[in-house]
């Protein structure tokens, strides 16, 4: 709209610019870094920890699939096996540690800062505590039972093979390990039901609200949608609207106000 006769110009969009903005925004919480540094200090490790654990899940899945095809994911395997093995440990450990640190910080901030505390409900604390518990449980499992994520990979393997067990793997079930698996499953099921899905909904908020600027041209799909919506029959009750449940938006918008109030 900065150009003369903008409607005659080609609408330019750039995937490169979008990625240049969105990647630092999603991975590093660029906006929070710029606008709210205190919260970023705890929010970034928490979110990055979650991303790292998602990456760990992918690595565990890849490792389990490789094992199905006969590969051995151990410290002494092929180059690819070695890569998956050590990468899983590194990424998983960092994820659990960052998540635990960030979760602790977020809970502390929410409890200690009145600006956050006064707006927090039981559900907000529960959501944070739930994720924090998962991080802590995972970290303790790693520390005491599953340094190389072999148990976690064996669990994915068994899921993919309907109960199978990797060759040479001796099951060492632990309360912590099983608890972490249960918590991880619950977290994955629970997040979409809460505002925590903002990690994914951000796409819609940015693309369909913040950045949405497609103009309505004659004969366009947008115009067709508008025409459809203008056919709705509103029921707003204020006198000046003049809605009666029968008149459409077109009828109402093309007539004058009926009463002052």
């Amino acid at each position, binding site marked *: *709209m*900065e*150009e*003369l*006769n*903008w*409607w005659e110009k080609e609408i330019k969009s750039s995937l490169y610019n979008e990625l240049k903005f969105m990647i630092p*925004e999603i991975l590093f919480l660029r*906006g*929070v870094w*710029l*606008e*709210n540094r205190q*919260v970023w200090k705890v*929010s970034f490790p928490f979110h990055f920890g979650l991303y790292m654990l998602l990456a760990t899940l992918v690595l565990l899945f890849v490792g389990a699939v490789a094992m199905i095809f006969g590969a051995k994911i151990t410290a002494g395997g092929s180059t690819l096996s070695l890569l998956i093995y050590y990468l899983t440990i590194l990424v998983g450990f960092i994820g659990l540690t960052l998540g635990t640190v960030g979760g602790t910080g977020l809970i502390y901030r929410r409890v200690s800062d*009145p*600006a*956050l505390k*006064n*707006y927090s409900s*039981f*559900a*907000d604390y529960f959501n944070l505590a739930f994720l924090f518990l998962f991080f802590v449980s995972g970290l303790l499992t790693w520390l005491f039972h599953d340094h190389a994520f072999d148990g976690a990979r064996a669990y994915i393997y068994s899921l993919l093979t309907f109960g199978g067990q990797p060759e040479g793997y001796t099951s060492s079930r632990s309360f912590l390990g099983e608890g972490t698996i249960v918590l991880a499953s619950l977290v994955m099921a629970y997040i979409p039901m809460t*505002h925590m*899905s*903002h990690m994914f*909904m*951000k796409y*819609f*908020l940015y693309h369909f*609200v*913040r950045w949405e*600027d497609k*103009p*309505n*041209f*004659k004969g366009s799909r*947008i*115009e067709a949608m*508008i025409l459809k*919506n*203008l056919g*709705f*029959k*509103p*029921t*707003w*009750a*204020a*006198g*000046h*609207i003049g809605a009666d449940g029968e008149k459409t*938006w077109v009828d*109402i*918008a*093309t*007539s*004058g*106000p009926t009463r*002052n109030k």
Partner: protein
Amino acid sequence: MRGNFIKPSAISKPSKRLGHIQANELPPLPPPYEDLNNLTLSGLKDEKIANIEASLDDTVAIGIPRPKNKEEEEKYIRAFLSGLRKLFEKKNNWGFLQPLLLSMEYCAKCQTCSDACPVFEMSGRQEIYRPTFRSEVFRRLYKKYIKPGGKLTSKLTGDIDLNWTTVARLAELAYRCTLCRRCASVCPIGVDNALITHEIRKLFSQEMGIAPKEIHEKGTLQHLRVGSTTGMNPVAVKDSMDFIQEEMEEITGYKLEIPWDKEGADILLLHNAGEVLAWPENVGAFAIIFQAAGISWTFSSEELGYDVVNYGLWYDDVQMARVAIKHAEIAKKLKVKKMIIGECGHAHKALAVIADRVLTGDLNIPRESGFVILDEIVSSGKIKFDPSRNNFPVTLHDPCNVVRAMGIVEPQRRILRKIAPQFREMTPHGVDNYCCGGGSGFAIMSGFNFAEWRTLVSSRKKFLQILDAFKGEPQDVPKYVCAPCSNCKGAIRDILEYYHAKERSHIYYGGLVELIVNAMVDMKKPMIKFDEESF
């Protein structure tokens, strides 16, 4: 009750006042304004507020009559709940339902928005003005009364009592935000607290018929009835324009012809009619520039055709659509190629952006910002300029609706760089600008002591920015705040007067076109005369 750190649930607890402005809590003004740091709001007179709701803070924007009995209270609450439901129904709110739902569901309450809000900051961080306070109250009501099982889960998600006090305070609170959307622009998730405020205003207007009289009765209703929110009918506006034409010739020595109702002209130029009354030189300057550039253009003398304001943008979708459709019908009748919007920020957004989702078929006539064509004219070389005529400090105010909402940032700057040698930016500027404090209707709202609240609180940040832009300039040098928006000009005029900035710092204000005409070589006499009334 002390205003700091109260919880959203406090809105439902009856008390004399929920928030309170105190002079010693407001961010201080620099020299030579320190003596004005003790200014505070004049108290509301008991007899004036005896029968209206005034328990939110120290001012009143609407003045809702207090219910006489329990039955009336219940009626208000039932109407509120009915409107709340309608906001979340597609047939009643198809235009804004998607962003509203997203903003309802995904706020992480991180408070990043709070530091971006000039009203919150300049009030001394009064909790009720925090962007999330209003939103959280509304969100809790939505979750409790609209979401399935909400009454059961509200104890977990944040409960709030819905009573007369809640309803009345929420209505008032919707008019303590200028809808500048600075909060939305910094939200890491994309939640839009200003949109929530806008939707609350809509609920009250469209369902309950509650809105400030300046924007409803004297605003959109008068606009649709008479032709202008100023009350001017077509005869009056043509008379005024004849006067403007004569005065412009007198001031500049330039022979001016103002075209009316010229069918088939390329451009229909639409002004905020407030300019005709309050800043006629702006209307005259536009006409001079268009004539000098040889543009094919016209004014319309049809009702509404000479007043591009659209107050519906701030509070009522139906009124917004009615006004926008009238504007488009007039353009269609005149067979113009495009509509050009003069220096009026909210009209830019209403006609160019929001009406884009209303106007279809032959009514979808292209709309363009006046800044763009002015930039084209100034850059084209059609008019000769002598920038030395504007050799005084100039700073630019960015109207939120044009800059942040529409992304029109550069055209007005290119013009100033060419014609104003001492142009300097405010900090921050562009899409990060601060509102003038008069947005969303505040500039025209003056009932009770509201205008005082505006100059003291919501416009305070702009005043500090203006002072900062001219920091280091000698006191006696005249300085010009270029505010290319009628609402912004009104708010800036009021803060300059309130803080005696003309006397103390020689700060003046005006539009963009006045600077352009002032620099035109063809003008025999200067248009801008500091210390003199132009008209």
